[in-house]
């Protein structure tokens, strides 16, 4: 890799230990993947903010960096923590566990990380611009920043994101290069599916695309319109079931105004037809459980927007969720505040549902609840639940999720 004089000085230790260690790791990564040089980033977003991910090893790393005087060099936001800082007792989080998450919060704060505790930093705090280079982790945020906003970031791992934040640059390879952003696999929607593409098909299609794409760049044709939240749900599912870090949706995403643009004038290496049959089959695959009584319903993965909060409030207006059932809605603190001002939180809480703020169903220790069957409208949550929560999981539309909370029962698709 070509290094600047300044970068050589950093590697010689002239700018302190944290900088030396961080740049050293990034340069080795660049060497392993054929990067030509480092590239400055506009921001970082870090996933090792959760105790469930970072663990004691993370606390050790962050403590060492803080002792050595580490400070982030660019705007850096945090992914969800493993607790709702205000309500962790309500969610039966053991005090000793909460204490470790609070320790991580303190260490990240001392490094200058903005405590956003959200997987959707691109909505408010950390909004990338088209063409900007970033150093982000959190697979659902990476795929959104690359695909929907046209920013450029590889899928960084936990701690590599911290290294990027400390030096303000990343090795230039992969998705930082235009030639690596061209589509490779074409997913072509059948006309009848294209005409009636329902809201809850977005995470299902994402799950299917992730399974069939691997680490290549998928291009989807036949989606006529998509909301911000639908693209968020699609990408999160594709990034969970596969390793999709960038997709193009022709006519929808900014680097795919036409099919030719999406593929960079090359032919697809593979074409996959998607019809109703694939959607139904995938929805069944996403449901690892039987129809019957439900213990918990989880929505807001990735974190709910204000539009989604309105939708939940509308569906719950004047109703009461079934006795013994939990309905958990994940969101970040800004959306919570706005939803409270709009009266949605009052409606949601009167119905017996709970807000889970700044954390994630996937990240909380839920063992104490003894859940057996869970329902979600999230493709990402459906992918991880069988292992993280240890419960059966049924995928359903948002409306069917709320209905399951109200009746206490669900039918598998």
């Amino acid at each position, binding site marked *: 890799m070509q290094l600047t004089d300044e970068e050589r000085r950093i590697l010689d230790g002239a700018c302190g230990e944290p900088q030396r260690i961080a740049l050293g*790791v990034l340069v080795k*990564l660049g060497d*392993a993947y054929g990067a030509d040089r480092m590239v400055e980033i506009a921001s970082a977003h870090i*996933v090792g903010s959760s105790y469930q991910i970072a663990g004691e090893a993370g606390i050790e*790393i962050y403590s060492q960096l803080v002792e050595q005087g580490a400070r982030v060099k660019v705007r850096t936001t945090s992914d969800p923590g493993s607790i709702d800082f205000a309500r962790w007792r309500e969610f039966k989080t053991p005090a000793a566990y909460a204490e470790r998450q609070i320790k991580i919060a303190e260490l990240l704060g001392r490094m200058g990380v903005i405590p956003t505790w959200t997987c959707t930093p691109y909505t408010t705090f950390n909004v990338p611009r088209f063409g900007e280079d970033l150093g982000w982790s959190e697979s659902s945020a990476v795929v959104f920043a690359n695909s929907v906003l046209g920013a450029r970031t590889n899928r960084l791992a936990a701690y590599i994101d911290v290294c990027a934040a400390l030096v303000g640059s990343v090795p230039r390879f992969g998705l930082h290069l235009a030639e690596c952003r061209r589509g490779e696999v074409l997913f072509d929607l059948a006309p009848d599916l294209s005409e009636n593409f329902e809201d809850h098909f977005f995470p299902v299609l994402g799950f299917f695309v992730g399974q069939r794409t691997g680490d290549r760049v998928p291009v989807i044709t036949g989606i006529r319109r998509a909301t911000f939240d639908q693209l968020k749900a699609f990408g999160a599912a594709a990034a969970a079931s596969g390793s999709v870090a960038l997709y193009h949706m022709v006519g929808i995403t900014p680097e795919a105004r036409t099919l030719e643009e999406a593929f960079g004038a090359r032919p697809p290496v593979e074409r996959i037809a998607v019809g109703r049959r694939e959607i139904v089959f995938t929805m069944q695959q996403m449901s690892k459980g039987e129809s019957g009584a439900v213990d918990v319903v989880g929505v807001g993965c990735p974190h709910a927007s204000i539009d989604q909060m309105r939708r939940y409030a509308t569906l719950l207006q004047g109703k009461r969720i079934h006795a013994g059932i939990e309905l958990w809605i994940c969101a970040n603190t800004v959306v919570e505040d706005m939803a409270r001002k709009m009266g949605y939180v009052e409606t949601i809480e009167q119905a017996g549902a709970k807000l889970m703020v700044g954390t994630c169903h996937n990240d909380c220790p839920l063992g104490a609840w003894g859940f057996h069957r869970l329902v979600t409208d999230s493709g990402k949550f459906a992918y991880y639940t069988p292992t993280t929560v240890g419960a059966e999981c049924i995928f359903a539309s948002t409306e069917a999720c709320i209905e399951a909370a109200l009746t206490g029962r669900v039918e598998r698709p």
Partner: protein
Amino acid sequence: MSSPHVMLQGKGCAPGDFEGEVVVSQQPFGFWQGIDPQTGMVIDKRHDLCGTSLKGKVFFFPYGRGSTGTPGIFLEAVRNGCAPAAIVNMKSEPMIVMCALLAEAFFNVRIPIVDGLDGNSRAVLRTGDRVRVNGTTGAIEVISRG
């Protein structure tokens, strides 16, 4: 019976030199929710190695299924002395290479990684073989059969 001292050539992805026993899996592997960092045991119930310890082993798996949280679990295993000592893949994803770089930077532990082995090479390695892995040159030497 194959003769020992078979040499395989891959591509070095993370530096280090290690000699030890190999554990071979035919399935992709994800460390996140795949390994217990307190013991080094495979805990993914869907995996062919479930119940096998990776602690101190040369771990061969074809390619990774990596969540961005992978280094969280991986470094926890390194910190506890329960991580694999070397990794060999057909294709190493960046996530696992990042884990090895971080282990060296923050815990002073070198975990050599070699990738680029083809299907034939995979058939040569068997669980229990004693091998030597060089993460710089990409050379893998089968020293004795298990």
